[in-house]
């Protein structure tokens, strides 16, 4: 008869769990042999590694979202190229357009195209191609998982787009846009060979671009494969083919890297800070940290008690130990943020980062006194999966709840971004952590939306920020034609944001990516042109 069933069961369960924890522990200490090293390379070190072998990357989303997407593929894949790109310091740089200039009131822009450039299908790149691309943009706006393509926001008031000769294009605008080239950077001026467009402006089959790589295979939700375009006009890529797999779960993506299934992790939130910390000490892997246009903001409801009181906003900002947050939760990847604009923007004016917990607590005590205060802290799910927002929120919660002489209670609620935005717009929230990227190199729309009283994000996020001087500055910038004056206005706006706190900038994010040391040349960069051209198998 089955004897002592209960006790036997429980001992079996404990034994199994001990075994599990045993091997769980081992996983951390002895990383497996790096399966990426190609035995052939080992034998003859001098011989060049076989670059025709496919290099696999993994990302949390489709790198080629396909025909319904405005650009079919992410720019970093190097399938298509824009007229204007940007260089290290964020200012516009020539790509398919060699040089450009505009008239006095910036209503007429002339672009001189690079000559001798051909598409991957051999068709030449000239002014007619640019005109066809603008025709296509008019059929928009097009949705995209990267940046929405809407001709009215990128080229506001575009009247006409004509060619004066085969390699010169002239754009005429209703009102002056002194920073048009900034808004055209990268995703603003993507150029495709018109034959790959469908009737409604979406794509019919694979996209044809002038880039160093071509799309060879694409299975939505699973993977896409790109192959080197040997007729590329610029410096060609080294590796023959790349495969980009879609692995949404951070843990599985990391396991795929460690299992040698993929050689690198790319795109937003490629690897979590904790995982990157583990890889740093390991010679079998290489972690690369690069600039990122993303800023982490602690948005506050300035329209309702207590954050309508500047002392409360400033107090909380002083209370936040930004460097500890970066060191503890982001594993050191990130820069403490003083001002509103990301350091990667050309108009960045650095603002002092002040950390003074006593004064912060004093200010908050003045603002709320000892009356009971209930604060609602919203966290959007999408960002919680990519960034350590949950730990950050619980840290801020603990800070606020333990201020001497105050009676503050913070409730943290995770929500999908949809309802979260509705709650914020309706004003029934107090704090919300959210990332904000740089839509384009021209920060005007960012300042207007966040800081202007009628700014749409100011209203949509329920920031409730109102400052007449700021409104005047933004209205002046809207019509200002002098780029230098614009720079002064943006610097002043950033200085105001560091004192008036429309919302609390916490840190400027840094792009963290990882790759196995089986490949080299893979850098984390801000959507630059180089993309994957320098990536290849190592010795």
């Amino acid at each position, binding site marked *: 008869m089955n004897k002592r069933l209960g006790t036997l069961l429980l001992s079996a369960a404990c034994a199994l769990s001990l075994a599990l924890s045993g091997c769980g522990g081992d996983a951390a200490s002895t990383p497996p042999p790096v399966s990426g090293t190609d035995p052939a390379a080992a034998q003859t070190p001098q011989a060049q590694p076989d670059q025709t072998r496919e290099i696999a990357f993994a990302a949390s989303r489709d790198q080629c979202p396909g025909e319904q997407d405005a650009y079919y593929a992410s720019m970093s894949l190097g399938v298509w190229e824009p007229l204007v790109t940007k260089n290290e310091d964020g200012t516009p740089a020539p790509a398919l357009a060699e040089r450009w200039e505009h008239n006095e009131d910036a209503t007429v822009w002339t672009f001189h195209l690079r000559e001798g450039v051909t598409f991957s299908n051999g068709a030449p790149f000239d002014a007619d191609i640019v005109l066809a691309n603008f025709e296509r943009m008019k059929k928009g706006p097009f949705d995209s998982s990267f940046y929405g393509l809407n001709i009215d926001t990128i080229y506001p008031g575009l009247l006409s787009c004509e060619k004066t000769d085969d390699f010169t294009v002239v754009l005429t605008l209703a009102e002056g846009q002194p920073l048009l080239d900034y808004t055209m950077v990268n995703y603003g001026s993507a150029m495709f060979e018109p034959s790959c467009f469908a009737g409604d402006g979406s794509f019919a089959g694979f996209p044809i671009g002038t880039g160093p790589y071509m799309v060879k295979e694409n299975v939505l939700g699973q993977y896409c494969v790109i192959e080197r375009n040997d007729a590329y006009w610029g410096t060609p890529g080294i590796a023959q083919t790349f495969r980009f797999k879609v692995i949404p779960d951070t843990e599985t993506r990391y396991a795929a890297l460690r299992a040698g299934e993929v050689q690198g992790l790319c795109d937003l939130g490629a690897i979590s800070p904790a995982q990157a910390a583990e890889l740093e000490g390991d010679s079998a892997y290489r972690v690369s940290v690069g600039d990122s246009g993303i800023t982490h903001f602690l948005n506050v409801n300035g329209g309702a008690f207590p954050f309508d009181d500047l002392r409360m906003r400033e107090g909380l900002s002083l209370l936040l130990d930004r460097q500890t947050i970066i060191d503890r939760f982001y594993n050191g990847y990130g820069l403490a943020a003083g001002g509103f604009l990301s350091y990667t923007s050309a108009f960045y004016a650095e603002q002092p980062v002040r950390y003074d917990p006593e004064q912060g607590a004093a200010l908050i005590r003045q603002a709320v006194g000892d009356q009971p205060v209930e604060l609602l802290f919203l966290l959007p799910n999408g960002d919680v999966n990519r960034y*350590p927002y*949950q730990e950050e929120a619980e840290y801020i919660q603990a800070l606020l709840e333990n201020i001497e002489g105050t009676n503050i209670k913070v409730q943290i609620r995770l929500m999908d971004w949809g309802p979260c935005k509705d709650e914020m717009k309706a004003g029934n929230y107090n704090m919300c952590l959210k990332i904000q990227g740089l839509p384009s190199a021209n920060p005007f729309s960012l300042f207007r939306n966040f800081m202007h009283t009628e700014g749409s994000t100011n209203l949509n996020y329920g920031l409730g920020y109102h400052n007449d001087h700021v409104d005047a500055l933004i209205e002046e910038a809207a019509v200002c034609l002098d780029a230098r004056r614009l720079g002064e206005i943006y610097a002043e706006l950033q200085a105001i944001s560091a004192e008036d706190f429309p919302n609390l900038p916490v840190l400027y994010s840094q792009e963290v990516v990882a790759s196995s040391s089986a490949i080299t040349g893979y850098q984390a960069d801000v959507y630059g042109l180089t993309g994957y051209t320098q990536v290849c198998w190592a010795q």
Partner: protein
Amino acid sequence: MTLRNRQNLKLAAVSAVLLALIGMTVLAPWLAPCDPLAIDMSNCLAPPGRAHLLGTDALGRDVLSRVIHGGRASLLLAAAATSLSMCAGLVIGIAAGYCGGIVDAAITGVSNIFQGLPGMVVMIALVGVLGSNTRSIILALVLTSWVGFSRLVRGEVLKIKAEPYIEGMRGLGAGHLRIILRHVMPNIRTNLIILFTTRVGRVILSVAGLSYLSLGIQPPTPDWGEMISGTARRYFRSAPHLLWAPGICIILLTLSIHVLGDLLRDRLDVKQDAVKEL
């Protein structure tokens, strides 16, 4: 040592484990060495040591106290949701079985529909939609699990209604309620208990599933499900201790509930084990 003594021994062992877990969560405030919510940024992800027996989590909070407090939410949710589903299932099942005719057809139709809906997705949609507070989680759990109870109860009621002695009772002028309470209920008791225990086990795991999708119990309340799926998953390799303690507690809790269900079945329903020698 007769069969009954051996059964008693096993029952005692399993209920001891179960009571220990429940006791731990109920007496949590006194048992836990320190405040589960106290953050200590200087001491994050410390491995198990003398100061913190089970180490600390990403915010420097003591894992042991969080584990001790952690069971409260899942146990409360599981018990409340399952008993509500049982009551709902009981009422609907008896109504369907006892009244028969259109009522039975209608209720069976509705339960077919509910069974047709994919349970987990309905739960995720409901909680995602109504916000992940305890009330909506319980509602979602009840909506997706009452069908099991009502089907069982209806089957039993139909079986008993066909028994001749029920007509006899009716003949003696016994009211419907009396028949149901005195005759139908005792017969369902065994299967009801067994279904209750399996359902509680499954509800605990679905709550943990919801926590994985960050739709379960909201931070910072310590909860086992959230502790093995939330932030701890990101430190799975560097700080495995974060994951094992709550994981083992969940498995132990669910395991002991299932074993309790088995033992009760053996105890109350002798027929199953009286088996011919092969």
